[in-house]
């Protein structure tokens, strides 16, 4: 028979003030299986834990109930105490008499005491059905997959690879570099983005532990932590990278012009192209959607001019499979489309652009050679209005959250504008200046003082055209007046949103995402890098808007997590997983359908002892199982049980109330 020990905590006054602890102990002692019950001031303290350890030995206890605070708080502590005493830690049950009784029934001590007694009784009943559980260890494949080759992906890949762990880096576009490669200079130091990024890009390409697969996408991810299997579709580039020297003859001769994504469509590229001069790998690809040869079967000029004969129009997509142990997701961000701002005339006026377009214009390798111009007439603007929080912090039209980096890059833009067009003036409409960061406030001050940028605190209510000028009508909140600025160019700092493919990717990876499409971390504060699915980590703006230093920090954190995961040959896992009783399983496979982790497969077992005939039953991969219990509830045969939350345990609890 079970021998249960009950330990009731005073939690100082937290419990004892509102629950009559000795009564709870007396009630517990009445239960048949309870062989020992005691109270103590602080059960979680060392002496308290020592009491538990001593009692286990002295009273030969078979399970332990601690009535104290929430199990979410100290379950681990007490489990440790049990294992120190040589007892299986999973024989512990915690009765939550603080959060669920003393703190919420402070006006009725009797009711709170009764309830605490019931909670203890329930925990005792449950603990009787507790079983010894053992941590599960799963073997690990020591290779990481990094999705996304922006600065986050690059940093994570480099850090992991530096720990001599092989990395597969998958990038959707023909070159790594991401958004950072599009930037001109970076705040708050104004060092050249390309100058600090390109060495890292080259490192990636040459690192012996990094396998770079550009122009490709992850299309499938199976398995579980330490044992994932990824399928990567390598899109046909129609250029044989092995023989291509990157000379550029092909794209110089190509007659097809396509809006250039790298330059935000301000100028054009060719149908065969390298995204930008410093691209890594610096090999061109053919854009199959625009290539006349591929579309109509005519042209082939690039092939004629390629001395190496590297052009291969018959190339097809290729699926690469990799066995990996962990995944870092770093898919980056996109800009919100400001069309809903009809009062600004977005879409009607050509001279309203977004920040990234401005960034490309002022960039030395940009389409205008580093000079901002008005898209409508090509003139250099003298008065530029920057509007912040377009779409951000706007529940009505855009998105509720703050995009975090706009304050800083708008300050940067003001400075860059001043550098490029000396006689220009920037007007900046803002809601708040959020310059929290090292050197950030100073940077904003610099923009205000050095460039004479006019910071106007207020929203813009309307933009309309008057002659060649755009009239920006807004409020100057500090003066309490309406102001109108005659602008040559308006730059909108539109909200930052996650990549639009994020939801699809999340479903593919089996992780969750929020209503905006940002991938969700396991815990907003304490596990900001992990996802709810073990072995998948997040870096950069795929999780939330971030600036470069934060992105790099998170990427490195991912690398640390991956290295930690790969430190041993196996991974330890919580034993709260489902198991199938094959005798009862009728093989209906409903559990297979409901399992969110695809942890359940089927196997054939003999119909009876030594029988030749087979029947199909479910089998749970305990490495994949996360212990949600969906399968348990769906199983009509009651053949599945979830360790730690078995049917007998829960029924015992219900019946014991």
């Amino acid at each position, binding site marked *: 028979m079970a021998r249960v020990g009950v330990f009731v905590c005073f939690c100082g006054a937290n419990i004892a003030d509102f629950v009559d602890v000795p009564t709870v102990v007396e009630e517990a002692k009445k239960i048949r299986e309870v062989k020992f019950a005691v109270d103590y001031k602080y059960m979680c303290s060392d002496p308290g834990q020592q009491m538990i350890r001593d009692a286990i030995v002295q009273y030969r206890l078979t399970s332990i109930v601690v009535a104290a605070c929430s199990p979410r708080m100290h379950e681990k502590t007490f489990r440790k105490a049990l294992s120190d005493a040589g007892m299986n830690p999973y024989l512990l049950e915690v009765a939550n008499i603080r959060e669920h009784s003393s703190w*919420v029934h402070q*006006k009725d001590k009797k009711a709170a005491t009764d309830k605490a007694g019931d*909670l203890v009784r329930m925990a005792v009943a449950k603990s009787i059905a507790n079983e010894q559980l053992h941590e599960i260890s799963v073997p690990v494949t020591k290779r990481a997959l990094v999705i996304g080759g922006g600065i986050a992906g690059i940093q994570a890949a480099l850090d992991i690879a530096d720990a001599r762990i092989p990395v597969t880096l998958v990038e959707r576009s023909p070159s790594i570099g991401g958004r950072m490669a599009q930037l001109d200079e970076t705040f708050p130091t104004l060092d050249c983005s390309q100058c600090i990024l390109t060495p890292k890009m080259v490192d990636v390409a040459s690192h012996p532990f990094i396998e770079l697969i550009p122009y490709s996408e992850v299309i499938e991810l199976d398995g579980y932590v330490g044992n994932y299997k990824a399928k990567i579709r390598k899109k046909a580039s129609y250029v044989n990278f092995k023989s291509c020297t990157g000379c550029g003859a092909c794209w110089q001769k190509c007659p097809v012009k396509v809006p250039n994504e790298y330059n935000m469509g301000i100028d054009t590229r060719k149908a065969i192209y390298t995204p930008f001069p410093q691209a890594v790998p610096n090999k061109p690809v053919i854009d199959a959607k625009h290539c006349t040869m591929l579309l109509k079967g005519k042209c082939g000029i690039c092939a004629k001019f390629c001395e190496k004969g590297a052009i291969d129009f018959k190339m097809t997509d290729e699926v690469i499979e990799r066995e990996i142990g962990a995944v870092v997701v770093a898919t980056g961000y996109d800009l919100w489309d400001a069309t809903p701002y009809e009062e600004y005339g977005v879409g009607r006026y050509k001279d309203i652009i977004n920040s990234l377009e401005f960034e490309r214009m002022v960039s030395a390798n940009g389409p205008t050679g580093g000079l901002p111009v008005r898209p409508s007439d090509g003139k250099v603007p003298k008065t530029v209005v920057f509007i912040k929080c377009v779409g951000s912090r706007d529940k009505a039209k855009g998105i509720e959250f703050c995009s975090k980096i706009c304050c800083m890059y708008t300050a940067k833009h003001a400075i860059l504008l001043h550098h490029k067009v000396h006689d220009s003036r920037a007007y900046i409409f803002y809601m708040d200046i959020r310059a929290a960061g090292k050197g950030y406030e100073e940077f904003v001050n610099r923009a205000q003082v050095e460039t004479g940028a006019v910071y106007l605190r207020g929203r813009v209510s309307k933009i309309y055209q008057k002659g060649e000028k755009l009239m920006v009508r807004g409020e100057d909140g500090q003066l309490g007046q309406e102001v109108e600025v005659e602008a040559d160019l308006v730059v909108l700092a539109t909200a930052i949103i996650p990549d639009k493919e994020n939801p699809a990717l999340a479903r593919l990876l089996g992780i969750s995402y929020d209503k905006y499409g940002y991938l969700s971390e396991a815990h907003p504060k304490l596990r900001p890098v992990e996802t709810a699915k073990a072995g998948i980590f997040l870096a950069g703006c795929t999780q939330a808007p971030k600036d470069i230093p934060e992105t790099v920090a998170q990427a490195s954190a991912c690398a640390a997590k991956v290295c930690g995961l790969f430190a041993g040959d196996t991974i330890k896992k919580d034993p709260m997983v489902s198991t199938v009783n094959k005798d009862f399983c009728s093989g209906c496979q409903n559990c297979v359908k409901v399992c*969110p982790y695809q942890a359940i497969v089927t196997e054939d077992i003999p119909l009876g002892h030594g029988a030749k005939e087979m029947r199909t039953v479910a089998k749970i991969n305990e490495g994949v199982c*996360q212990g*949600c219990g969906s399968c348990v509830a769906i199983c009509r045969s009651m053949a599945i049980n979830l360790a730690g939350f078995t049917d007998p345990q829960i029924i015992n609890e*219900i019946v014991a*109330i």
Partner: protein
Amino acid sequence: MEEVKDKIVSIEKPELIAPPEWKPVIVGILCNWCSYAGSDLTGTSRTQYPPNIRIIRVPCSSRVDPWFIIKALQTTADGVLISGCHPGDCHYISGNYYARRRFLVTKELLKMVGFHEHRVQFSWVSAAEGAKFAQVVKKVTEDVVKLGPLHLYKKENFSK
């Protein structure tokens, strides 16, 4: 030996008046990640609610077998509250969707055989909604108090 003549003594009998000392028992089955955490937050923020609920922790609302509800009503409970993460917020991706469908069927069935719909209630409480949890418990308790004790035959047999 006594013949068992446990006619189902009223699932819902308005004519049976609750004895004055009667206090309802409500079984609350909460998912670990949202509602249980939410109920902890209720405690941490010292929001008071009626002391009739007895909370059982499960990993996910999808772990809740409708059996539990039937058993609870048959044995100890006058009302049952099941609470999980908000739809779409499930820690286990999709568990609460399964739970929701299952509960709809359960509720329908219980209603059909003559249980008042307030006997079994479902709610979605997130880890941040401590105040909401208190409100939910308050509402469920009030509803069940209005309905009176659940005289399911079983208890008659077990009364001392």
